[in-house]
Each structure stands twice: as structure tokens, then as C-alpha cells.
């Protein structure tokens, strides 16, 4: 039996069905093995779809055989394939590395539940990427959010609880705003399928409700995506979450909301609302620029390593939004590539943090002084991923910064301002990364590690795998570039 046409459905169904089964795997380690196997399967499915899509096809799947627009449609294009790779890749890498870290942080009795929530988050995030209708995106968004609240609050740190409560409140507000927007569009067009919606919005005589809907959807998704200044839930939630959960969510959690935002802007509204391009540019561009500058500046002065990296994530989301707000092919190409490259860089950095956390209880930066002497490999991986985050040539981060600057140069009179902003914020990234590196390598030790030596081998290997991927995709970036340039063309040029 050929399963290829069913891949978009299996992408979601496999982790969703496995999640309740993993709860039953009580014996030690079995839940981890089961969940890892399913995450691996999900990654293989995403890889297979990415290969099929990069050849130029869009995979469509009608759930239950009911054809769109009446039935529920799943669609995987180049953009969603890229996102699926990020989601499943992050889920797989983090869960493989997770075993020792999770054994330390979470009671053995609760581990099956933890891994089950992990798979639910994976299924929800993947569901957002494959869903082709607005309401299913909402449902999957809530599945993934509820699961990530559980994951973040699952650790031993009590400060995670108020942080996750704030995340729950703001996340639910965001999702409900999105739901209001979708309701208003349904009121005016009578459809939920995104492609059908695009075709019908043009026929709507009174565009005011659609404009209001666009506002609700943009704000709701910006809350979920932690776009500055709606990011206040993010730093605490990422800082106090269990280390491996931070790896997983920092790599893909907010990016999914950015993806839905871009998809709505370009797929549904762009050609149909008068002046939408300018409106989204004038709304998103200032927020992106402010986010880049303010979050980078704040990150320079954060004393806690995880919070510093989490704050930097807000700035990186700013880069992605900045590229998209140009509404040009070059800008979207930069956005798509940065989605991928930032997931690599930030995932690698948080993996290195998880390694450090094996021996250092306190992750404030001054407490980590001299850690490179006992943990040379971890520190070196941190340096490699840090260089990628800064955007040094030869790393993945350089590719997307380069693309972003080239896209900014096309922006006419204000080009030099935008380029200056990207360069200044990269310099700030140099500062906030290099101060960590300096502390790790050149400061006399302050706190004694709980035991000398390196992090557990499994964790270290995965960390280095990601670090090498940062270099690999910096030297040979064809694969993400092919997908994101196909995505950019599809987003801008598609006509129905």
C-alpha cells in the first residue's frame, strides 16, 4: 500500500495517536523510547514531504474524502514543508537529547505524562503547518499551546508556574482574538478554507468587517508569536521551563504563529484588501525594528543565561517579521531562511545551556565563570552556535542576515536605515554572546561544578550535531534556500 498521498494526515495523526499510548509505558525509559520513535517517524514524514514539495508540487489531502471547500483540507506547500522540518527536527533532536536532562528534572512517575504532552505539542504544531483552513489552525494552535503550558510547568522550578500562568492568559487572549477575526471573515464570506476565503473576499462589498478581522487576526497571532511589544510572556516562560522544553519550544514554538501570520497576510488579504500591503508594512515594520533594537539591548544586560537567550529570541522574531513586512520576494526569502537558521542557532545554544545545567545549578552568567575548563566541548558548541546567531560568515546565521540586508537594500530611500539597524543589532548580538563566551573561557571560576567533567555523552553528541549543522547549512545552504524561495514565490505570485 502506498502511503505517500496520506503523508499530510499521518504527520499529525501519528504523534496524536501515540500521545495517549505513551502514558501507558510505565517502565523506566520506555516512554522516552516510544516518544523518540514517534518523533523520528514524524521527522521522516516531514523529510519525505519536503522532498516531494521541493520538486514543485503542493500536497493536498481531503480529510474523510470530503473535498474542499466543504470538507477539511490539508495542504503542504514549500512554506509549510520548511516549517514542518523545523518543528519535527526540533522535536526529534530535543527528545533524543532529553533523556538525562529529563531524568534529573522530572519525577520518574510523571515522565510518561511529560512525553505524552511532548507528542501532543508536536502534533499540534505540525497540525498548524498542514491545516488549510482557518478554524483547524485555531484548534491545533490550542492543542499545541495547552501541551506546551504543561511542558513548561512540568519542571522543578516553582517560578515556572507564574510564568506559565501569564503565558496561558496571553496565549488564550491571542487565540481568542484570532477566533474573533476568523468568525468575522466567515460572516462575510461564508467559508473557512483559506484558498476559498481568498477567492471570496474579493467579492465582499463591505470590507470594513474584513479589515477589523485582519486587525484581530494580526494582533492575536502577534501575541502568540511574541512580536514586540506583545512578548512579555516569553522570557520568563523560556527561562524557567525544563531545559529540554526550552530547546524544543525556542526552536519552533513562536515561529508557527509567525507562519500563520505571514500566510494570512499574503495568502488571504494581500490581493483583496485595498492598501493591505501598505497597512501591514506600516504596522509590522516599526514593531519589527523596535523589537530588534529593544530586545537586543535588553539581552545585553540580562544576567541569567537562559533569559538572555530568550530575550534574544524576541529580536530574532523581529528579523523574521522585518523580512516579511517588505512584501518582496527577497524579503520573504530572508524570512523563510531565517526561520530555519534561527531554529538551528537558538536550538543549539539552548542545548549547550542544557549541557551546562548538568553541572551548574545556577545559570546566572557570572556563576558560570571558567566553565570551559571542565566542559570544553560544551563551551565550543556554544561558541559555534553563538557565531551562527550573530551571523558570522561560514555559519547558517550569515546566510539569512545577508539575505535580509540584500532585501533591505531594495527598499528605496530608507534602505540604509534598515541596513544600519540590522548591523547595529548584529553588533549587539556580538556583545551579548561574547560576554558569555568570555565568562566561560577567561574568567576565574566562581562556583564549583557539582561534579567535574563533561555533560552526558548523548546530550553532548546531539549538541555537536546541531552545532555542525549550523556550519553545514552555512557552507551549503541550498536545501532551506530552495524551499524558502519556492515559498516566497508561492506567497507573492500565486493566483487562483
Amino acid at each position: 500500500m502506498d502511503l505517500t498521498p496520506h503523508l499530510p494526515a499521518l504527520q499529525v495523526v501519528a504523534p496524536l495517536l501515540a500521545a495517549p499510548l505513551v502514558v501507558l509505558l510505565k517502565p523506566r525509559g520506555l516512554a522516552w523510547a516510544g516518544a523518540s520513535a514517534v518523533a523520528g517517524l514524524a521527522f521522516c514524514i516531514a523529510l519525505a514531504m519536503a522532498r516531494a514539495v521541493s520538486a514543485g508540487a503542493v500536497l493536498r489531502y481531503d480529510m474523510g474524502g470530503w473535498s474542499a471547500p466543504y470538507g477539511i483540507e490539508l495542504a503542504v506547500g514549500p512554506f509549510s514543508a520548511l516549517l514542518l522540518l523545523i518543528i519535527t527536527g526540533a522535536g526529534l533532536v530535543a527528545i533524543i537529547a532529553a533523556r538525562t536532562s529529563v531524568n534529573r528534572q522530572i519525577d520518574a512517575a510523571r515522565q510518561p505524562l511529560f512525553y505524552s504532552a511532548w507528542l501532543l505539542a508536536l502534533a499540534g504544531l505540525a497540525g498548524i503547518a498542514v491545516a488549510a483552513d482557518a478554524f483547524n489552525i485555531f484548534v491545533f494552535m490550542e492543542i499545541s499551546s495547552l501541551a506546551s503550558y504543561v511542558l513548561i510547568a512540568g519542571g522543578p522550578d516553582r517560578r515556572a508556574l507564574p510564568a506559565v500562568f501569564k503565558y496561558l492568559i496571553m496565549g488564550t487572549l491571542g487565540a481568542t482574538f484570532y477566533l474573533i477575526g476568523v468568525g468575522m471573515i466567515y460572516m462575510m464570506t461564508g467559508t473557512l478554507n483559506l484558498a476559498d476565503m481568498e477567492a471570496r473576499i474579493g467579492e465582499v462589498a463591505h470590507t470594513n468587517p474584513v479589515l477589523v478581522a485582519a486587525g484581530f487576526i494580526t494582533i492575536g497571532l502577534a501575541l502568540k508569536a511574541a512580536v514586540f511589544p506583545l512578548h512579555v510572556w516569553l522570557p520568563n516562560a523560556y527561562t524557567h521551563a525544563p531545559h529540554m522544553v526550552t530547546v524544543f519550544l525556542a526552536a519552533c514554538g513562536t515561529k508557527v504563529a509567525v507562519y500563520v501570520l505571514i500566510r494570512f497576510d499574503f495568502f488571504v488579504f494581500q490581493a483583496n484588501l485595498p492598501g493591505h500591503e501598505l497597512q501591514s508594512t506600516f504596522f509590522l515594520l516599526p514593531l519589527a525594528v523596535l523589537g530588534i533594537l529593544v530586545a537586543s539591548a535588553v539581552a545585553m544586560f540580562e544576567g541569567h543565561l537562559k533569559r538572555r537567550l530568550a530575550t534574544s529570541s524576541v529580536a530574532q522574531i523581529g528579523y523574521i517579521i522585518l523580512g516579511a513586512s517588505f512584501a518582496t520576494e527577497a524579503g520573504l526569502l530572508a524570512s523563510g531562511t531565517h526561520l530555519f537558521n534561527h531554529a538551528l542557532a537558538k536550538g543549539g545554544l539552548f542545548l549547550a545551556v542544557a549541557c551546562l545545567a548538568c553541572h551548574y545549578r545556577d545559570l546566572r552568567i557570572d556563576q558560570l565563570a571558567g566553565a570551559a575548563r571542565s566542559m570544553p566541548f560544551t563551551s565550543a558548541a556554544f561558541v559555534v552556535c553563538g557565531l551562527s546567531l550573530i551571523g558570522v560568515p561560514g555559519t547558517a546565521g550569515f546566510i539569512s542576515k545577508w539575505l535580509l540586508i540584500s532585501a533591505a537594500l531594495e527598499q528605496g530611500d530608507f534602505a540604509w536605515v534598515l541596513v544600519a539597524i540590522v548591523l547595529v543589532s548584529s553588533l549587539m548580538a556580538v556583545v551579548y554572546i561574547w560576554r558569555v563566551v568570555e565568562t566561560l573561557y577567561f574568567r576565574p571560576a566562581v562556583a564549583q561544578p557539582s561534579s567535574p567533567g563533561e555533560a552526558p555523552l548523548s546530550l553532548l553528541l546531539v549538541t555537536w550535531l546541531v552545532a555542525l549543522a549550523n556550519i553545514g547549512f552555512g557552507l551549503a545552504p541550498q536545501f532551506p534556500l530552495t524551499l524558502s524561495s519556492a515559498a516566497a514565490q508561492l506567497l507573492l505570485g500565486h493566483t487562483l
Partner: protein
Amino acid sequence: MTLLELLGYFNYWVFAIVLSVGLYTVIAKVNLVKKLIGLSLFQSAVFLMYITMDKVEGGTAPIFQQGVENPVFSNPLPQVLILTAIVVGVSTLALGLAIVVRIRECYGTIEEHEILDAD
């Protein structure tokens, strides 16, 4: 727009008011349970919006019956959608309350400012 036309949008007025009351409660209250009550109100307002838009004047449940010519049906789709959204809302509320219980266990309080002071 005359007064009658404005009153004709009664359900939408209620939607807007309940939505705002909910949002205000979430932002203004420091007690975490009260915040969740506000969140619940906020979501309920959206349920009302969906239910309102599917109403067709004189419409009934979309079931074909013998002996009824040219029946007028209300749109069932928003009701189905909102059934799903209600389930999502209930799960969010349950999870939120569970987190509040954990916060009470760890901090001994559910007032936001006291929790901030504790760390």
C-alpha cells in the same frame, strides 16, 4: 442609523460588552482565579458572536421533515465550530485552575503581587 437599527444589533452589543468586561477583568484583577473568570467571560463572548451569526430569521434545525415545504434552516456550521471552541475553553480553564492550585501549593497565595514579591 436609527435607534431601532442600533437595537437590532442587540446580540453584537452584548458580545462587545461582555468581551470588554472579560478583557478588563483579566488585566485589572490581581487575584489569579478572578483573572481566569475574566478569561472565561472573554471566551464566552466569542461563543455568542458565533451563535448569533448563524441565526436565520424563522430558521429551524437543519433536519429534513416530511410535509414541510421550503424549510428555512439556521446555519449549523458555526454551532459545530463553537462546540469545539467551548471544549477548548473548558480545557484552558481547567488547566489554568490546575496551575493556580500548584501556585497556591508552592507560594501559599494566589495574589499576583504577593507571588512577584516572593521570588
